[in-house]
């Protein structure tokens, strides 16, 4: 377990519910955690860069999670984590979010993204908004900027008793070109 010394802020219980909800996804959709997740944060100046280095160092020290850091064309930094277990990745995402929050960069956090593979319908993501503490599904289709709304709504119906979900579909903003 990484970042244990910092502890959790305790307001992320809705994020940790994912460690239970993925079982439902497995049972009802034959969907499994794809081993990848990421926290996406808007770049800032000053102390921000040293926190980024700090987080990288912590991730380097973590034996059960491998990671890479990417910058996108919107000016966001992606901490992309790879591990087999969803518990580990949720804890890591929470720890990274906590670290940035602690230094006053909570508003910079865009979202966290968790990748899943469904047996029949392929790749989809659960996007977690750290401000509203809600999840929403995102199922991009393979061709271009299109999404499978019907599949997203199915995921929503299946998970609505398990996770705190965003009810307002007009806020289900896509993130195109997720780098995993």
């Amino acid at each position: 377990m990484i970042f244990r010394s910092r502890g959790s802020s305790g307001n992320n219980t809705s994020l940790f519910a994912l460690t239970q909800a993925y079982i439902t996804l497995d049972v009802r959709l034959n969907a499994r955690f794809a081993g990848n997740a990421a926290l996406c944060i808007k770049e800032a100046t000053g102390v921000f860069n040293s926190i980024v280095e700090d987080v990288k160092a912590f991730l380097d020290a973590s034996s059960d999670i491998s990671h890479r850091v990417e910058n996108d064309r919107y000016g966001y930094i992606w901490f992309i984590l790879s591990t087999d277990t969803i518990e580990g990745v949720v804890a890591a995402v929470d720890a990274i979010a906590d670290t940035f929050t602690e230094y006053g960069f909570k508003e910079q956090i865009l979202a966290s993204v968790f990748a899943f593979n469904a047996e029949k319908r392929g790749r989809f993501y659960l996007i977690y908004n750290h401000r509203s503490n809600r999840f929403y599904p995102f199922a991009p289709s393979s061709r271009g900027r299109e999404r499978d709304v019907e599949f997203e709504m199915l995921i929503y119906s299946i998970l609505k008793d398990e996770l705190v979900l965003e009810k307002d579909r007009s806020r289900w903003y896509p993130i195109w070109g997720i780098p995993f």
Partner: protein
Amino acid sequence: MQRYEWKKRDMGITMRLMLCFTVLAVLYFIFLSVLAYVGVGMIPLIFIGGFFIIMQYLLSDRIVLWSTGAKIVSEYEYPRLHAIVDRLVARAGLPKPRVAVMHTDVPNAFATGKGRRSSVVAVTTGLMRILNDEELEGVIAHELAHIKNRDVLAITLASIFSTIAWYVMHYGWYSSYGYRSRDQAGGLILAIIIAMITWFVSFLIIRAISRYREYIADRDGALLTGKPSRLASALMKISGMMSRIPERDLREVEAMNAFFIIPALSGDTLSRLFSTHPPVEDRIRRLMEMEASMH
């Protein structure tokens, strides 16, 4: 005398039908009032009123086709549409209804007819354009469920009861106070008020029955195709809800950072009370729960 349709932006078809049936209702009312005035008794009045309603029911498909401008089409003109209807009626064990098309861009569909054998399923050209085959199948299955459940008959019966209730109240008031008593003016006003209340309550009840049967048709239609999510996605397209799903990247939106404080729209209960159709959002939710339960 009733019709079912996808109540959305489509004011054209809805307005034409409402106008048509309102004119008919006003004509009946004037006619029956004249009869009452010249001294025809309550029992004959009920029979005459009932006769009108039954005639309207028997001619309902013709009235609906005429007022909506839907044209019966053959298999040669619309093979895709006929093929879908053929598949579904074979599975549902229903006689094949006539198939009609309305030339308008507004996506809509309805079923009408007095019985399972003489029904009509009508769709607009706009509906066929925006839906794929599976979604169109979902919509037509919903309409066939209306036919199978004899919903036109159910609503007509409900209307007959409300009409009878109206005349009984009306007439009962007259006879208990004496039609030409000294209290005539006051009695008349009270009679009108009570008749209005009777009519209004039965109107709300008919709307409630109609909404309930809409859910049942969604469910039965979805069972017929085995794909509730396709009807849900058709409903989203028809209602324009699909366009409310954002396409813009979260990062672009975040840059404008004004979007996260918009409150969710709250449902308007009053308009729900008057509506013949349940809120689309609710129908989609039920259909998706049905789909989820199949997984």
